[in-house]
């Protein structure tokens, strides 16, 4: 049985989809500039995930490591996961109090498609960090958390 995630005709069930993402995260397949994995290996629903973004070059974020919490509810991947920064960060699409990435202000979450993965979210966020409106924002000291 093939689990080609790209195949639009085949609807990959949630668990297979998440298992595939888990493997990609562990083995560093793909973009490779972001890292993610499951919080609790015993959770059969695979809901809680931790992601890490390494700050992009040529931005204030360079050299910093941002930790995020992703929560894939049972309607994932039909619905986007909720994404929240754990490390404090100053970005236009991130709520300053809670660290939640606000879907309205972040394209990939606003226009979610089920082919999108958590890796996509993380890499998009990383691109967002390097975007002109975020690139030079003054950042809270590293090592502080929401």
């Amino acid at each position, binding site marked *: 049985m093939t689990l080609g995630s790209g195949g639009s005709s085949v609807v990959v069930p949630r668990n297979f989809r998440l298992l595939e993402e888990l493997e990609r995260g562990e083995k560093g397949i793909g973009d490779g500039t972001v890292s993610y994995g499951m919080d609790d290996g015993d959770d059969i629903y695979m809901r809680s*995930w931790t992601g890490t973004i390494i700050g992009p070059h040529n931005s204030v974020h360079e050299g910093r490591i941002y930790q995020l919490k992703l929560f894939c509810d049972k309607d994932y991947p039909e619905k986007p996961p909720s994404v929240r920064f754990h490390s404090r960060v100053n970005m236009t699409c991130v709520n300053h109090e809670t660290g939640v990435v606000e879907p309205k202000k972040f394209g990939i979450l606003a226009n979610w498609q089920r082919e999108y993965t958590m890796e996509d979210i993380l890499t998009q966020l990383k691109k967002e960090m390097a975007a002109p409106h975020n690139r030079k924002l003054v950042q809270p000291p590293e*090592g502080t958390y929401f």
Partner: protein
Amino acid sequence: MGGDGVADDASESNPAGGVTVHVRCSNGSKFSVQGSLESTVGSFKAVLAQSCDIPAEQQRLIYKGRILKDDQTLLSYGLEADHTVHLVRGFAPAASTNTAGATNPGGPNATPSSARGVGLNEGGALGGSGFGASLFPGLGINSLGGGDSLFGAGLPEFEQVQQQLTQNPNMMGEIMNMPVVQNLMNNPEIMRNLIMSNPQMREIIDRNPELAHILNDPSTLRQTLEAARNPELMREMMRNTDRAMSNIESSPEGFNMLRRMYETVQEPFLNATTMAGDTGNNLGSNPFAALLGTQGGAQAQDQSTNPSVTGSETTTGSPVPNANPLPNPWTSAGSGGAQTNTTTRSNPVGDARQPAPAGLGGLGLPEFERMLGGMPDTNSLNQIMQNPAISQMMQSVLSNPQYMNQILGLNPQLRSMLDSNSQLREMMQNPEFLRQLTSPETMQQLMTLQQSLLSQFGRQQGSQEPGQIGGGTAGTRNTMGLEMLMNMFGGLGAGGLTVPSRSDVPPEQLYATQLSQLQEMGFFDTQENIRALTATAGNVHAAVERLLGNPGQ
């Protein structure tokens, strides 16, 4: 100390057998290493250090979105064969982190070289190859604090002093050859920390990887420091920078390039300085606030000419946050005098006890001064002063008349002052007196003493800055005396200043970086960590010692 932990782990590592783990660096390169999953992250880092150019203590490993902690095993993170971990070079290694270095009063000193390079010759300082060279000698000497801020010291004619220094590189060499200074110089780590611990500076560096590279290359730093020590070499370097500049300028597009450089480096730099002026909280941690002489100077002037500022100073006896920028004894403009004095006077009377010992710290113990600088309140200051180890250290320095003489002799202004006040000289050279000075009980006495000195000082100051007296009459009488004494001691800088300005920042915020470092090292009790950091003024190294050994107190 993280470094130690790593070393220890490494010694007990046994990477025999094991599995293949892929490592992906942040620059995109990949490599694989053999390691045992039973080994700790710390020892795994030691293995990695052999395969990449990042020393173990600077490595940050990320797996499954989590940052791996040194004391955990790879297995505990669920790492398996053929899995990939991400490797990132972290800033300031946990070892010997003197993050409190930011409060080093030496910081704001734009030394002759940087005054020439950055202040007077704005463009020149940015000149391609010359940039690092001309900037870093400056930064380098900045960290001497004690010995060299003595020169600046807010003495009235310090423009002269500065000139003298620039014209007399031998003196510079002399400073550079002082053992304390050499010690500092030989430790590029400290200097990097000094720079990295400043958020604004870090931002600049973040944006300019080339700069970061310079910083991360100890040999560059050492080279520039070496140059600062050797007057000939320094002159040569200066000449080269100028030459390089004119070359760049004369080449097509060269000017634009310079402008771009100005925009990416100089502007944020200036921003950093203004920002510090705006936010009192940032003050202590921004020794670069006054690095750019003109900017800082102008700002200070504004504030010193603002009657409301002085007015409030004379009336308040309770601690108020100090909103003035750090004094910059080296400000290239003459405004520096005003600047230093203003800031001193703005120290609330209630805090008067603190600056004095901080000033003493300036006598050549930058580290110690830094510690004092970070003291959030009188209590912890007293605590420190009562700490046998500290007082012993102070005493050993202060009771060495030779050392004192050296410091005093090095500063022509101070010397001439002493010559005209034989009483003062006696005082300064009496180890007994100095020892007494360090005792908290005698701080009050000291105040009285300062008042008795006031008339002399007042006259002296009056002749040079008539305007100042008007602002600083009656209400600030004793602070004025204090001011002068502090100026004499030369430790004025951040020592006195940061005390009030820092006290209103909650420690967990103030020491956020250090806290997370401690967390990463495996100290999970936040309260305990904060206590340790507060007691050590944010020095992670000392905090760890304290947490482990839990000495005294």
